[in-house]
Each structure stands twice: as structure tokens, then as C-alpha cells.
């Protein structure tokens, strides 16, 4: 978090947020320049749930009181957010979620379990999809969007270790947790629509070319150090990958441009999510190929051209085609909602 606080103090933490909420109101080109500069200096990843996901959603759907309570701490970096969507029985089939929020006077009573919750054990608040009407048909019509203080009594968080060796995500248990009714975002049972708007932002945010640009730098360092950079076959693959990174930057600028023109990133954003995530995996495959015998080294590898982390980013890249809706789900969405192929 020191990097977050540094950017925050400089007023640079949320270039894409409007100035009235503490952002920079940066133009598209300014955002892209910042992204590329951050990638070049190898800046650490920032926790994105607040900045990219719940922030924009609150601006669009929240009450003034909710905005006043929650937006400034995101900018200041004093509150970390977690996303509570997936459940053990509701992964790709998210609408089948069953964590129950029962309205009782001016409060909800929440009971159930969330899983694959990124950074939950470091987070202060969760924005969650909860079932408020178990009888609703379609099931999507019985879901609400709720802000939950993770320090509330009745919450238990258990970190889950990943193949990349970190405990980036957790499972979160809710045992009759009391949540004030004023923490409902939007209308009761209208959470699915909000979640979908958020999915658009999420797909766009995770597709930021910054990650691919950083991967290219890693590959180049590793390939120079291992000597494979001189191999024309490797050069061809690197050129293909690098051209695809340029294509990703173009897709990203194009999508952001449309968003800036007031169009919410809809199902079209699945295109960039698939392209960016599959490219990131291809880049990491190139990285371990460049590393050769170093591929499995656990710690960053010291080379004449600087330190390179190889195995960890490669393993971490497995998650990108799974989170935020797997590539297969994205393809289903595109086939039906964008290409209008028959059911």
C-alpha cells in the first residue's frame, strides 16, 4: 500500500475518475500515457476493486450519502474493497447464488458463503450480490447489491492458497451478519443489473494493456539473459506477441473512447477481456520458454539485465481466463448477445 498512498497524495490514484470525486478527469490519451509509464517503471499492481469496480458503480447508482461515505476513502487508500460474487455453488452460473439477505425492519440479516474473494482478508468492505427473493423467476430478479462492512460480527474469513503460492483469495462466511438497510445500492432485487454494469467495468479494467506491456519487458530481459533472443524462431514469436500487445492497446483505447462518450461497456467488453487474458497467457508462455531451465525457479532470477520473476507470473496468469467470467462464458455471452446467434 505505500505506492497507493504515494499516488493518492499526489492526486494521481484515480486518473479515470471525474475531478468532483477526487480523480484527475484525465483524457484518454493522458490515461494511456500514464498506464504505459507505470508499466515501464514496473510499478506494483494496485488493488483495483475500489478504484475500477465499486467506485464507478457508486458514481452511477449510489445515493449521495453512500457516495460521500465511500468514495473519499477509496481515493485516500484508507479502505480496501472486496468483491463478493462467486459462491461454492455459483461460479459460472452466478445467478444461482444463494447467500441470503433477509430484510428485517431497517436492517438485512445475511447468511451464506462467498468464495474466490480477492483480498478479502486484507479488506474492510465488500460489495456483494445477495439473494433477497428466493422465489423470484427468473432467478436474476431476486438478487440485490449490498455493501457489507467486513469488520461486522458474524463474518469469518479463511484465506485460500493458490498455485502461484499466494493467498490472494479467500472464502468468506456470513453467520447472521447484520447490515443496515441503507447499505443497499439501487433498488431491492435490482442487483443483477448493477452487477452487469460492473462486469463491463471489470472486463475493461482487467484488460488494461499495462499488464501485457510489463510482460513484454520481462520476456525481453529474460530472453537477452538466456541468449534465446538471437534465435529467429523466438524473434518471430516475440514480434507476433508484441504486435498483439499493440492491438490490445488499440482495442483498449477504442473501448475507453466509447465509454468516455457515455456508452457503458456492455457485452462488447467480453471481446477485450478474452483478447487481453489469452494474450497475457501467451506472453507468459513465451516468458518461460525464454527462461528455459530457469522456468521453475521460485524466486526472481538475477540476470545481467536485471531481476526477472518467471514462474510466479506464469502461474498467476492461469487465473485471468477464469476470473470475471471464464473465457467460455464470455464466448457464450458474445455469441448470444452480440452476434445474435440462435439459442
Amino acid at each position, binding site marked *: 500500500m505505500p505506492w497507493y498512498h504515494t499516488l493518492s497524495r499526489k492526486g494521481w490514484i484515480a486518473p479515470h475518475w471525474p475531478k468532483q470525486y477526487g480523480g484527475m478527469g484525465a483524457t484518454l490519451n493522458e490515461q494511456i500515457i500514464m498506464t504505459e509509464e507505470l508499466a515501464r517503471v514496473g510499478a506494483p499492481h494496485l488493488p483495483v476493486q475500489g478504484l475500477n469496480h465499486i467506485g464507478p458503480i457508486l458514481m452511477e447508482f449510489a445515493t449521495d450519502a453512500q457516495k460521500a461515505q465511500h468514495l473519499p476513502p477509496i481515493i485516500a487508500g484508507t479502505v480496501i474493497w472486496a468483491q463478493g460474487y462467486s459462491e461454492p455453488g455459483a461460479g459460472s452460473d452466478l445467478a444461482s447464488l444463494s447467500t441470503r439477505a433477509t430484510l428485517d425492519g431497517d436492517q438485512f440479516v445475511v447468511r451464506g458463503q462467498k468464495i474466490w474473494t480477492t483480498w478479502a482478508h486484507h479488506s474492510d468492505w465488500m460489495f456483494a450480490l445477495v439473494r433477497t427473493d428466493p422465489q423470484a423467476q427468473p432467478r436474476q430478479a431476486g438478487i440485490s447489491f449490498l455493501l457489507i462492512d467486513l469488520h461486522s460480527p458474524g463474518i469469518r474469513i479463511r484465506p485460500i492458497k493458490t498455485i502461484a503460492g499466494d493467498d490472494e483469495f479467500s472464502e468468506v462466511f456470513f453467520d447472521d451478519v447484520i447490515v443496515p438497510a441503507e447499505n443497499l445500492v439501487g433498488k431491492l432485487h435490482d442487483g443483477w443489473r448493477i452487477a452487469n454494469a460492473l462486469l463491463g467495468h471489470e472486463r475493461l479494467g482487467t484488460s488494461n494493456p499495462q499488464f501485457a506491456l510489463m510482460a513484454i519487458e520481462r520476456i525481453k530481459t529474460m530472453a537477452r539473459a538466456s541468449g534465446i533472443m538471437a534465435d529467429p524462431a523466438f524473434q518471430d514469436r516475440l514480434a507476433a506477441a508484441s504486435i498483439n500487445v499493440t492491438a490490445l492497446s488499440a482495442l483498449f483505447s*477504442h473501448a475507453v473512447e466509447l465509454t468516455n462518450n457515455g456508452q457503458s461497456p456492455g457485452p462488447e467488453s467480453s471481446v477485450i477481456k478474452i483478447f487481453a487474458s489469452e494474450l497475457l497467457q501467451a506472453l507468459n508462455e513465451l516468458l518461460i520458454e525464454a527462461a528455459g531451465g530457469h522456468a521453475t525457479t521460485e524466486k526472481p532470477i538475477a540476470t545481467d539485465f536485471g531481476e526477472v520473476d518467471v514462474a510466479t507470473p506464469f502461474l498467476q496468469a492461469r487465473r485471468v481466463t477464469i476470473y470475471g467470467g471464464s473465457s467460455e462464458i464470455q464466448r457464450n455471452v458474445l455469441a448470444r448477445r452480440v452476434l445474435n*446467434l440462435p439459442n
Partner: protein
Amino acid sequence: MDLHLTSEQTLLRDSAAKFVAAAGPKISREFREHDPSFAPARLRQAGDLGWLGILVPGSMDGLGLGLTELALVLEQTGRGLVCEPIGLAAISAAALGQGRTPHPMLERVMTGAALVVPALQESAHGDEPLEPRTQVAGQDGALRLTGRKMFVCADGADGFLVSASGRDGPTLCYVARDAPGCTLSTTQTVEGRKLATLGLADTPADLIPAHSSSRNAVDALHNLALMALSSELLGVMEKAQEITFDYLRLRKQFGKLIGSFQALQHQAVNIYIRIEAARSLVFQIAANNDPYRIDPALAIAAKAKASEEALVVTQACIQLHGAIGFTDEHDIGLYLKRAMLLSSLFGNAAAQRRRYVAIADLTA
């Protein structure tokens, strides 16, 4: 994703789409193996619409527009399998008009009364466009060219823009088809049109000076050619996609529309993603580059991507059609063949990637 276009750009695109509606696979078939393989009257019509002078400044009676407008028109000509070499003529006109005084051929090229095309390639693979083996000798006003150019779209051409190495490095020259020492030998392509090898033996030529904003006239024309072909390739794949998706919505097997099968839906989405990525790349570059000073790494990236994806997409479109897609009678094969031709011109995807390594400084 929709492009964010101005109303003028939308009008231009729509008028190109209208022009193209009168072209299409049927016309394209008629011109297979014809000489020339296009309708000169329709080239003149493109001239009347201003497209051949689209990049030429208004002071020389051109439209004075940019790369986005060029790409919008060529995307449509690609969609329509238009046979008239509108893109090659338009970029040649830009070169003929880039000096302080226009080349005498400019006016006739802009109206479509004459056709000039670039002749920049010298081998099947491994060309370095800025180091042509064709030599230029003599003083301005009495230049002589000796060498050989390959894969020239010489059908119906009255002259060529030839790259050559001279005392001052790569030099762009105009050569008339009927100039002494200029010979053409043609090869029939499977696409229907012919490609030619252009022989030059002490052939008189005119110097084409660089535009004031260009680094070099050969470099500028080559990059422009890469963008023009990439734009046209986009249109080819878009139309092939459209035809294929229509088929998926129509064809029934096992009692169901085949477009409802998830395996085919996911293939369709893969086609769509490839096209969207290539399209964003081409139009972002078009929006951010001066036609006379295109960043060479970006032009190369666009041509590499468009060439590769057009081949992948049009082949996948045939697969999704099944046996009917393999017949000459069905139109979908025409798009594959057009993609083959345009992908190969001025360097295919592999050739572009080889240049990209050096130009984008990847190994440093």
C-alpha cells in the same frame, strides 16, 4: 465495436458502401482472368467520387483527407471484392501530388483516366524496402532505372512508382509502361487477377520527391501501401464473417440451427475477436498518423495482423460452411482468395514480423 466517426466520415463510408453494393462476388467472378481484370469505367466513377484523390491536397483538386477516410473507403472496397485497384491508385496519386509541383500524371490518375500503381517488391521474401536492388542513375530530369520488380498489380496500369537505390539512398521514381526498356511478364493468380514482373533496363524515369513531412518518399509510400492493404483486408474478412454468420442462422442439422451449437458459436466468436482486434489496430493507427509520415513499426504491425487474421478468418469461414464452402460456386471461397492475394502483397505476415523485430527494436 462501433467506430466513433464524424458525420462527414459516416457519409463517406455510406457512399462507399453504395458504390460497393453494385460490385460484389458476381462482378468479381466476371472479371476473373479478364484483361484488364476490372472495369475502367468504374475506376473513373471512383475518380468522380473523389476517392482516387482522397489524400491529395485540395490545392491540387484532391479531397485532402486522411488515413481514416482512406481506410473507411478501402474497408468497403474489400467488403465488396471490388476489382478496380482503388487503393493502389489512391496512394499512387498521393505520391504523385506530394512534391511542390504535381507530377504530370496526377490529374489523369485522380480522375481514373489513367492508372499508376506502386512497384516496390523485389523478391518473394526478405525484401528490405529501403534497400532496393533496382538501381537509379543519372541526374534529375534524365534518370535511368535498371532492375526488376515483382508482384506488381500491373493489370491495366499506365505507369509505375518504382523504388530504387541511388546516390542519396532509396529513391522513388515514376516509370511509364511504354517507356524504353520497360518489360512486363505476367502470371495468372488463383484469385483471378494477374501479377507481373516488371523488368527495367536503363529505363528513363522521373524523380518523385518526398512530401515535406516524410522521412523518405519510398518509406512513406511503402507504409501507406501497408495501411491501404490492411484496410482492404479488414473489409474482406468482415464480409466473409457476415456471410458465414448468416449461414449459421439459416442452416439446420440434427433438427436445429447449426448456429445454436456451442462449438460453432465459440468458433464464430473467435472469428469476431480476431476481426475486432485487427480493426481497432488499423483504425487507431489511421486516426493517429499523418498519411505521409506513418510510424513504420505501426504500419508493419497493421499489415502483419491483418494479413494473418484475414487468412485465418476466411479459412475458418469455409470450415463453418462445410462442403458447400469448398465449391467454386459458393462465394465464400472468393474471400479466401482475395485474402490470399492481399496478404501476400508488400510482404506477408511472416515477412512483416521479420522487419518488425528490427524496426521496433525488439532485441535491444
